[in-house]
């Protein structure tokens, strides 16, 4: 019996290139890299056509391949950047906190309660999140993306990227401080 769902590689570029490209660009924030990832995804899929069982849609299958390629890319970047990134760099915290460890009055979070909840679901807000994510250094961005876009476990992320749990917590903390400030600046004070 023929499978009810067979792959049609000749239609992939027309049907899926843009949605895969959009998926990739949010996660790698680099047009050229995102395009190359889409191309590599199609090539891998072509070589592994036999593994497409038709249990999921073609799009889901291709997205899963792309997702693995993105994680590979993060992993490669992480191993080449270990020496560059010192998460214990205290100077970063000085932007936010005084010598007592209290919020500096200029850096303390403003009141966001005036913006209605549904605004957080808006395209405009999501655009700001993307922009703010892009301001993080590459390794932090990888970690943050794996956690909050790919929804991976922290333990899995540490294993994939070869970082210690304590570095992970430090990086996450700093990343959230940076993103929060960036969102506030671009959203509330725009």
């Amino acid at each position: 019996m023929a499978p009810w769902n067979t792959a049609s590689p000749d239609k992939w570029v027309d049907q899926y290139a843009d949605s895969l490209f959009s998926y990739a660009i949010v996660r790698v924030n680099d047009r050229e890299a995102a395009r190359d990832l889409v191309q590599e995804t199609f090539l891998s899929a072509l070589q592994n056509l036999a593994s497409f069982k038709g249990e999921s849609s073609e799009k889901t299958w291709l997205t899963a391949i792309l997702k693995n390629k993105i994680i590979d890319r993060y992993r490669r970047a992480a191993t080449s950047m270990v020496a560059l990134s010192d998460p214990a760099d205290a100077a970063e915290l000085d932007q936010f906190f005084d010598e007592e460890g209290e919020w500096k009055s200029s850096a303390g979070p403003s009141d966001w309660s005036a913006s209605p909840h549904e605004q957080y679901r808006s395209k405009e807000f999501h655009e700001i999140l993307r922009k703010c994510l892009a301001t993080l250094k590459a390794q932090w961005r990888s970690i943050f993306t794996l956690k909050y876009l790919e929804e991976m476990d922290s333990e899995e992320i540490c294993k994939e990227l070869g970082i210690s749990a304590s570095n992970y917590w430090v990086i996450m903390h700093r990343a959230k401080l940076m993103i929060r400030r960036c969102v506030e600046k671009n959203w509330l004070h725009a």
Partner: protein
Amino acid sequence: MKIIPCTEATFLISKRQDTMLNTHEAWDLIVHLFVCKFCRRFLEQTRRFVREFGRIQANESLTSDEKRKIQEILNSA
């Protein structure tokens, strides 16, 4: 009673969004949040935006030229 500084409180807030805190950490954080408006805002705001990250969807396209090139590579593979 000693109250932890905001550096530590925000660290614990961030950690709690990801895993369980131990009793000691959880207690330190509760006490701090009780007295600190800025950290209460930090908690509320980060909780709100980390949740939104999973919902981001871009709507971007490759140019027809880029698609044609990819198609050529696939055809020759």
